[in-house]
C-alpha cells in the first residue's frame, strides 16, 4: 500500500537466506552471515522491523538501517537508523 517499495527482502518469509558454504553453522555464524542483508526482526509484541542489519551484539541488541516498522502488515513508521534493545526480540 505504501508505494515506494524497496528491493524485495530476500529473507522475507520462513526460509532462511542462503547459508555460507560452511554447513551446519552455529547460530552465531548464521547471524554473522546475515549482517548487511535485509532482515525482519520480530519483537515479542508482534511488531516487525524490516531493514538492513548493520550489526548486533551478544545481548542481541540490533542496529538496523532503512528500517520500516510493520504493525499488522501496515507500515507505521520509518527510521533511517534504529537501535533495538535485545530483550525485545523474538
Amino acid at each position, binding site marked *: 500500500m505504501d508505494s515506494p517499495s524497496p528491493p524485495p527482502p530476500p529473507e522475507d518469509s520462513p526460509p532462511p537466506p542462503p547459508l555460507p558454504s560452511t554447513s551446519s553453522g552455529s547460530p552465531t555464524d548464521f547471524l554473522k552471515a546475515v549482517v548487511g542483508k535485509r532482515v525482519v526482526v520480530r519483537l515479542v*509484541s508482534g511488531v516487525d522491523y524490516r531493514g538492513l542489519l*548493520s*550489526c548486533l*551484539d551478544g545481548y542481541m*541488541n540490533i542496529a538496523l538501517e532503512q528500517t520500516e516498522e510493520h504493525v499488522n502488515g501496515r507500515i507505521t513508521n520509518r*527510521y533511517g537508523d534504529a*537501535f533495538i534493545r535485545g530483550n525485545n526480540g523474538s
Partner: protein
Amino acid sequence: MADVPSQGVQEPFDLIRLSLSERVFVKLRGDRQLTGVLHAYDGHMNLIMSDVEETIMIVEPVEGAPEGEGIVRAVKRNLDMLFVRGDGVILVSPPSRT
C-alpha cells in the same frame, strides 16, 4: 561519514554513541514514545534525556467496536530532564542523518 552504511558502527551501541547530544526518538513499553536530546546512556540503555516530549497512546474502548479497536488518544507532556530506566526501552532512533 555516516552516509556510508555501517561505517563507524561496529556494534549497536555505536549507533547510540553517535547520537549523544542529538535529538533522538525513543519507543518505550506501554505505548509511550519520547523525543528529546540524549545526554547519557549505559549498557542497560538507561538514558538521560532533556527537553523531552513524551507521547502516550491511550486506546479508549468504544461500545460496539471490536476488541482492541477504539479511539486512540495521544496524550503529550513535556519534561525538562528525564531519566529513563533501560528495561522500558524498545527502540532508539537517531535523527535521520542520510
